[in-house]
């Protein structure tokens, strides 16, 4: 998943170059290609943000529906991907603003999650990681995921989150420091890196 952003492995996506400046709606095959390429990473992002599979499904559909409703002058994969993540981020933010469903509807963790990460099995560790990530604020989660999992550049993150580009490194630094503090608190030592 890491570094996937820079790859362009579909012929149809990217066939329309920047020279073709007239905005056009995506065709079904272009949509299918974009879905095949980006739906899983986008869903993972939304799932980590919301902690809820149903919300992740809803937001994924909303993001792609909005993508289909707008004509695009470009078929550049990176731009369309950035647009998808931006729309999905906005939709997730709207969801929280509508009533904090992100925190209320997080799926319950199993009893396995109570096991220490040092002694538990893979499932317990996974749940504990999810819970640790959810201890961060939504914006911190978005920042960290977009920067370190999706490999977005700072201007792209700024655009997706509605921030100034200059403030992204500062916020990222603080988010990483907070996450490191959480990891220390939960017993993830340097050996867990």
């Amino acid at each position, binding site marked *: 998943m890491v570094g996937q952003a820079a790859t362009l492995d579909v012929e149809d996506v990217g066939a329309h170059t920047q020279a073709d400046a007239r905005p056009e709606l995506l065709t079904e095959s272009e949509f299918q290609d974009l879905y095949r390429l980006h*739906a899983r990473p986008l*869903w*993972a992002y939304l799932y980590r943000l919301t902690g809820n599979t149903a919300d992740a499904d809803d937001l*994924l*559909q909303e993001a792609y529906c909005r993508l289909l409703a707008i004509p695009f002058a470009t078929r550049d994969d990176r731009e369309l991907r950035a647009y998808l993540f931006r729309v999905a981020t906005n939709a997730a933010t709207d969801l929280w603003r509508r009533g904090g469903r992100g925190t209320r509807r997080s799926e319950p963790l199993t009893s396995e999650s109570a096991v220490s990460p040092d002694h538990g099995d893979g499932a317990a560790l996974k749940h504990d990681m999810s819970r640790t990530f959810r201890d961060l604020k939504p914006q911190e989660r978005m920042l960290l995921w977009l920067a370190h999992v999706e490999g977005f550049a700072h201007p792209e993150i700024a655009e997706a989150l509605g921030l100034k580009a200059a403030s992204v490194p500062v916020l990222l*630094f603080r988010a990483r420091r907070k996450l490191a503090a959480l990891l220390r608190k939960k017993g993830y030592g*340097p050996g*867990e890196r």
Partner: protein
Amino acid sequence: MLHRTCAQQPDILSAVAAGRERETLVAAHLTACPSCREQADAISWMHRLADAPEPSRPLPDPGVIWWKGQLLRRWQAERVASAPIERMHWVELVAGCACLVVFLVWQWRGLSTLVSRAIPAGVAAMSTAAPPSNPLVLVLVLCGTATVGAMVLAGLHRMLYRSHL
């Protein structure tokens, strides 16, 4: 607040993000610099989180999303197309009211006579006693004309809306 305490941090973090944290120089710096180590720990942990398996759940059907997207697009197109008609609705109302006022001012005397002939003698006597500012006659004429005018406008609006669909 200064968000960086080590001058080498951007390079070190880039190396960590690229998975080169075990290189000798990077590893040595991470051992010596607590700030960079803290930041690198967070990045490495994010990579582990990304690699952690998610719930095994099929994604929403792309065919359904395509269909929903088409519906949404058509709905938006309809809204855009009907926006001028919605605006015209208010223009119609204002124009209708203005015409009504003009008509009443223009034909006030004739309407008063017509109403005084149509209503019973007692009321007619009252209306002739104090023409044309009798409030009852005025209210009757206004209500009647406004009702007829509103019905005509509503009918016109409905016809216009149907012709655009």
